């Protein structure tokens, strides 16, 4: 952890937190799924024991909740795919030799942009683009582009320049150097950025309920507005569990995709 922190400037410590580490132990593979299974069972048992009134029944039934979960996953998945497709190439472009001067500007703007609250940004996007699925996705993309962009740039910049020079000296073209040397070495940091963006999207997707998309935030907000504790608890626990599950899956993918040599 100390070596990770010293390789990147202080401001980046937070983003670079999920840098490469050793292979996973059994506890890492099984811990989170087991924990979620226990929480899920407990929640189910608790809700089953409650005497639900008609309002609660309207939200708390399998069909309704499945719809909310699917809606939530769709929002997070679509926005994450788009943000990867946009921000990774941009990050690569910003670190090319011809565009080197762009990198510090992007990083400074990025740090400023981090101060913009998610709620404000998405509301602004929806105000300009209208209520609905597409606008929320657009808002999520705008909010989560930063960690991917930043980590792509940092990941490429921390590649040992002597390696790049040797590759060029061996006769590799800039494109070959990028694809076979720089990108594989940057993979762990880029993946960490993608995972951060995914978690931001899953979390921020709960706010979609204010913009006409009824994901899990809808269940939570129904619980608050109608003052129905079971609805609120189910919404909050489902949203949290989903985020933790996706984060665990992303960590597993990160582990599997990291090149063996690293």
């Amino acid at each position, binding site marked *: 952890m100390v070596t990770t922190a010293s390789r990147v400037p202080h401001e980046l410590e937070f983003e670079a937190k999920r840098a490469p580490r050793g292979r996973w132990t059994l506890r890492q593979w099984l811990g989170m799924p087991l924990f979620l299974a226990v929480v899920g069972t407990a929640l189910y048992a608790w809700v089953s024991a409650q005497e639900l009134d008609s309002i609660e029944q309207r939200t708390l039934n399998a069909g309704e909740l499945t719809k909310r979960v699917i809606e939530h996953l769709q929002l997070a998945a679509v926005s994450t795919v788009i943000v990867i497709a946009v921000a990774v190439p941009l990050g690569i472009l910003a670190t090319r030799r011809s565009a080197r001067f762009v990198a510090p500007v992007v990083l400074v703007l990025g740090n400023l942009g981090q101060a*913009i609250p*998610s709620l404000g940004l998405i509301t602004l996007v929806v105000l300009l683009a209208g209520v609905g699925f597409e606008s929320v996705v657009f808002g999520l993309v705008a909010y989560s582009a930063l960690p991917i962009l930043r980590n792509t740039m940092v990941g490429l910049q921390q590649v040992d320049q002597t390696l790049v020079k040797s590759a060029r000296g061996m006769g590799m073209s800039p494109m070959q150097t990028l694809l076979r040397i720089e990108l594989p070495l940057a993979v762990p940091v880029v993946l960490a950025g993608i995972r951060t963006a995914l978690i931001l999207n899953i*979390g921020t997707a709960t706010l979609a309920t204010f913009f006409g998309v009824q994901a*899990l935030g809808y269940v*939570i907000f129904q619980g608050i507005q109608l003052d129905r504790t079971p609805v*609120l608890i189910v919404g909050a*626990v489902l949203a949290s569990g989903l985020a*933790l599950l996706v984060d665990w899956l992303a960590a597993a993918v990160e582990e599997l995709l990291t090149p063996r040599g690293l």
Partner: protein
Amino acid sequence: MDFYEYLVDNAEFLFSDAVDHVVVVALSIGIALVLGCALGVLAHRSARLRPVILAVSSTLLTIPSLALFAIFIPLLGLGTPPAVTALVLYALLPIVRNTVVGLGSVDQFVLRAARGMGMGSWRRFTSIELPLAWPVVLTGVRVSTQVVVGIAAIAALVNGPGLGNEIFRGLRSLGSPFALNFVLGGTLAIVVVALLFDAVFVLLRRLTTARGIR
């Protein structure tokens, strides 16, 4: 009504919301600093507790903000209490992790030298380890603050105080010509608050870093 007129008309209102925002963030960060440092020291000292403490605090940061705010309503009611509780939990991870990193980067030879000079464990901690780790800890606090200033906007949902209320005013009047003003006003004011906090941290870093390592 253009944005400038809106700002002039609502300056007082925005200012009091901004003050509320700053107070809630400062309160949460203050609590998180004490709690996070304590947990960080514990994680630094005990190799067995370290993975548990780090895993729990990073799990907390993964939970969607709306869910974390909401889950405390049955226990704490609406308003400031659930907001501050959720914000403290969000602020923990960067502080805990940087405390562990900071303490871990203290040179072992320096500690042994201090021991050889006859310093007890408490004095070694307060006058060697903590001052040397402090710049890294403070960076963690700064990151936490940036995160919390943004998330605090969502506190308005649980009837919490702060600039989020201005954004929600815009949200509720979605479609009216004034909505954009409210949302833009609230959002920009939060950015200003975040930048002010950052400036304070630059100053704090100067003032609180031990002279020898400045």
